């Protein structure tokens, strides 16, 4: 298949899967088999796309023209392919986990769940492969609406409220600042195509460019830059596999990916680096520290992880704002590493809940003995997210600090170091609590007569976290090849 056909296949395959899920919804096993086959197929397609990628031959594929000049257009490029690879690779694992989780929870409306999940993946693929800002916006909006039914899944009063906040934040930011910024860009530059080196240089003066950059940074609400991060904790009302999707696979990732694309292909890295992004650096760095501190205060495991995401992904915004090739490289790597690390943590949190019906940090004391393998996986994920070797998460932190040093931003270097400590501070206690504390006897949720074991845990809920934890280690080794893959488009000479 040609690149064009592969791109179309990558987008259409999840939609076709969704359709098949709806058709086969009545037969649970068949429906879940369809999901898995779809996920495997997508992984293969994206792998072929990456393997066959040739920067010189990557021609755009125009699908439609919504308004004259506002085209729906696809084009493969390295950063997008990296995102596509992450999303496609994690969909299969997430589906396996979903099957285990949803069956164990006896969740209703599972057909809708799997179908929307597939649609969300299709939208993520479209975002990854978009050839211009217009297409990216279209897919970005579609992703918001496709994930709404997932967030509201339990349809309890709390779920409805949380989903409302989720939608309000994302739609409000995308329809006002984001769309406004897109139209402004469109008028100023006369095009929306992603062009290496950017399209805005010389079209607007630097002051206005800084304003525009802020409109994008806050318009892309999915990037959850503080103070517009509120939707992310609200969305925790969703089932855990959905949280994993939001945090690791598609949604937040789509947000920061959008920012990366805008930095590289709309503004141009040098343009941002010459001072346009300076204010955003401050905001993003503050976001990193504040969100980390807030994470430490949360007792609910998933809430803690949510604030952790806000902090970790603010680093990508920070990378974007620095406007240095190394920083962008760090941003791309952070996108990958955080996905694998954070999905491990969410899988773990969900599995703990399945196995022990506990979801608070204070409740899980002593469960390490019951679910040792799971807790080790969680530890791997935590260390990777914190940025310690030998886990993939080390790379982006390292490169980001290097970029800050390059720019002589001593304060920023301190900030980043502090953030690593804070991350350890809010993630490692999970493991410590589980292994080294004795269970409280007065815990009302603790049922002494029933001893929890990993045997209680559906095997499908245990394998995915273990695999992703192992992935974190593998990525430590694989990171240089990812860097080499994206290096040409971001103007990174040799490897650092």
């Amino acid at each position: 298949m040609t690149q064009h056909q592969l791109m179309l296949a990558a987008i259409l395959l999840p939609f076709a899967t969704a359709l098949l899920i709806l058709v086969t919804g009545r037969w649970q096993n068949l429906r879940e088999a369809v999901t898995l086959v779809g996920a495997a197929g997508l992984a293969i397609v994206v792998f072929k796309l990456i393997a066959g990628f040739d920067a010189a031959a990557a021609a755009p594929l125009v699908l439609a023209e919504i308004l004259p000049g506002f085209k729906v257009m696809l084009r493969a490029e390295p950063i997008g392919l990296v995102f596509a690879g992450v999303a496609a690779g994690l969909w299969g694992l997430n589906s396996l986990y979903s099957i285990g989780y949803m069956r164990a929870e006896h969740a209703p409306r599972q057909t809708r769940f799997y179908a929307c999940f597939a649609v969300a993946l299709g939208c993520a693929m479209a975002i990854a492969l978009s050839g211009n800002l217009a297409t990216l916006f279209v897919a970005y909006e579609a992703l918001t609406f496709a994930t709404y039914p997932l967030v509201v899944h339990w349809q309890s009063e709390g779920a409805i409220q949380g989903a409302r906040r989720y939608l309000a934040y994302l739609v409000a930011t995308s329809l006002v600042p984001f769309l406004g910024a897109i139209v402004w860009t469109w008028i100023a530059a006369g095009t929306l195509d992603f062009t290496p080196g950017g399209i805005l240089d010389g079209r607007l003066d630097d002051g206005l460019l800084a304003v525009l950059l802020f409109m994008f940074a806050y318009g892309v609400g999915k990037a959850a830059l503080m103070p517009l991060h509120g939707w992310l904790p609200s969305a925790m009302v969703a089932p855990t596999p959905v949280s994993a999707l939001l945090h690791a696979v598609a949604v937040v990732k789509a947000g920061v990916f959008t920012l990366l694309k805008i930095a590289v292909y709309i503004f141009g890295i040098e343009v941002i680096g010459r001072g346009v992004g300076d204010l955003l650096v401050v905001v993003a760095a503050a976001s990193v520290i504040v969100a980390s501190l807030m994470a430490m205060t949360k007792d609910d495991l998933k809430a803690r992880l949510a604030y952790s995401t806000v902090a970790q992904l603010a680093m990508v915004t920070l990378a974007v704002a620095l406007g240095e090739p190394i920083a962008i490289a760090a941003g791309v790597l952070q996108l990958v590493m955080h996905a694998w690390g954070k999905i491990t943590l969410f899988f773990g949190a969900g599995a703990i809940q399945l196995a022990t019906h506990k979801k608070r940090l204070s409740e899980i004391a002593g469960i390490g003995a019951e679910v040792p393998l799971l807790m080790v996986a969680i530890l791997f994920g935590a260390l990777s997210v914190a940025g310690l070797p030998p886990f993939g998460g080390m790379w982006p932190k390292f490169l980001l600090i290097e970029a800050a040093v390059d720019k002589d931003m001593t304060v920023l270097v301190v900030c980043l170091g502090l953030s690593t400590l804070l991350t350890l501070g809010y993630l490692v206690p999970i493991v410590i609590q589980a292994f080294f504390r004795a269970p409280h006897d007065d815990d009302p949720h603790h049922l002494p007569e029933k001893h929890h074991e990993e045997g209680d845990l559906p095997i499908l809920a245990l394998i995915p976290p273990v695999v992703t934890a192992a992935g974190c280690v593998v990525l430590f080794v694989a990171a240089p090849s990812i860097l080499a893959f994206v290096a040409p488009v971001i103007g990174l000479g040799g490897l650092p």
Partner: protein
Amino acid sequence: MILPDAILAHAAVLVVVLPLLAAPIVALIRDHRIAAPLAILIALASVVLALELVNATWGGETISYALGNWQAPIGIEYRVDLLSAAMALLLTVSGSLAALMMSTAIAPEMAPGDRPRLYAALLLCMSGLTGIVVTGDLFNVFVFLEISSLATYVLIASGSGRDRRALTAAFDYLILGATGATFFVIGIAFLYVVTGTLNMADLGERISDAGRRAVIVGSSFLFVGIALKAAMLPLHRWLPNAYAYAPTVMATFLAMTATKVSIYLMIRLTDVVFHTPGELGRVNFAALMPPVGLAMLVFGSAIAVTAKDLKRLLAFSSIANLGLMLVALGLGGVAGIAAAMINLFNHAIIKGGMFATATAIVHRRGSARLDAMAGLSRQMPVAFIFLVIGGLALIGVPLTAGFVSKLSVVRVAFDLGDWTVAGGILLSSLITVAYVWRIFEATMLAEPRSDAPKGDMHPAFWLPVGLLGAGTIVFGIWSAPVIELSTRIAHQMAGVTP
């Protein structure tokens, strides 16, 4: 295209006269099972005629048809350009879709013997509105305005089989409509006195020599008369009740046509009578439109959030969308008129689709109250999907026609550097999200009633709902037809060759 030349030569007048003369025949038929197909057939024949008109005027030609062979300004002239032809197409298509649904939709609320008369009233309303858009004579506009208005009052009042408030809604509209029409007549009087002609084109030529004050007052009164029919703030009071209490199928037709014709008149009078693009008369009404339009946008959306009934919600949403059209019109220029036309056509499709779906829901469940629609997503999944499509289009989600509409106006505003307008439009879509989401939460998340009637849409609604829903999507992706048409119209209006 497909009709013989002998008919083609008269297409401009036939598109009006055919339904006009068919109405008495339909009204006389006793058996509603014969009257309904006849009405549908006539409406479809009008669509064919309107298509021919579009075809004939596509390249920028203007068809002039002298009625009674008395050349204007001695006699009455039908003057069809692309704008008129496209409007005629919109009107006849809307009429046909309403006719297709009508016999099923009103069956529960109207005795069989009364139905043929209602079909006749629909035909009269349609041909009256079509008469307005094809004529080149100002007084003839008034006559056909009255035909359509009288028919509209009756169509609205016939909703009293479900809710007696339809009667007061119709009466309110009658008083306001008749007052508006009288204002229109006063306006004509002033313009006639100072120019001596009723033909719009002739008026346009002679108006430059006319007394300025008389023209200002005349055009102001014309404008107020039209604004009343266009439900322009603060003259909008009739619209919510009229749409909410009219039989839903009639509300579908009205939402697609009635206010649109007023927008047409604004565009037409801007161009033909007053000849100063961007301004209506020597008073700069164009400057008035963006603020009023923005106010309508915000006000309509805000009230829609509080509505407890789907039809009322859609009615207030219509006010908001009319505001958007006025904003586009007020921005002026070729791009502004084009954006207004894009909005006009797309909104007719979107809102028509939503009202048509509401018709199907009311037909099945007897009510469109939001609290009575719990569980709709499971019990009427097809209707629910079309509500979702329409709702997303109202928000302006990409890949729907609503996005094309909104983006085209925002683009013009940005181009002109009008930040308030651009920002206002974008912000107002947030309120849209709020009211559209109320529909979704009511239909998807609320606990269904166990006694809700079973079954999805009646087959009679499949075609209209399906067509309009498909149009919402198709014109959101492949917007070229609507944009090409609107741009050609705008060019023709501004006298520029594309």
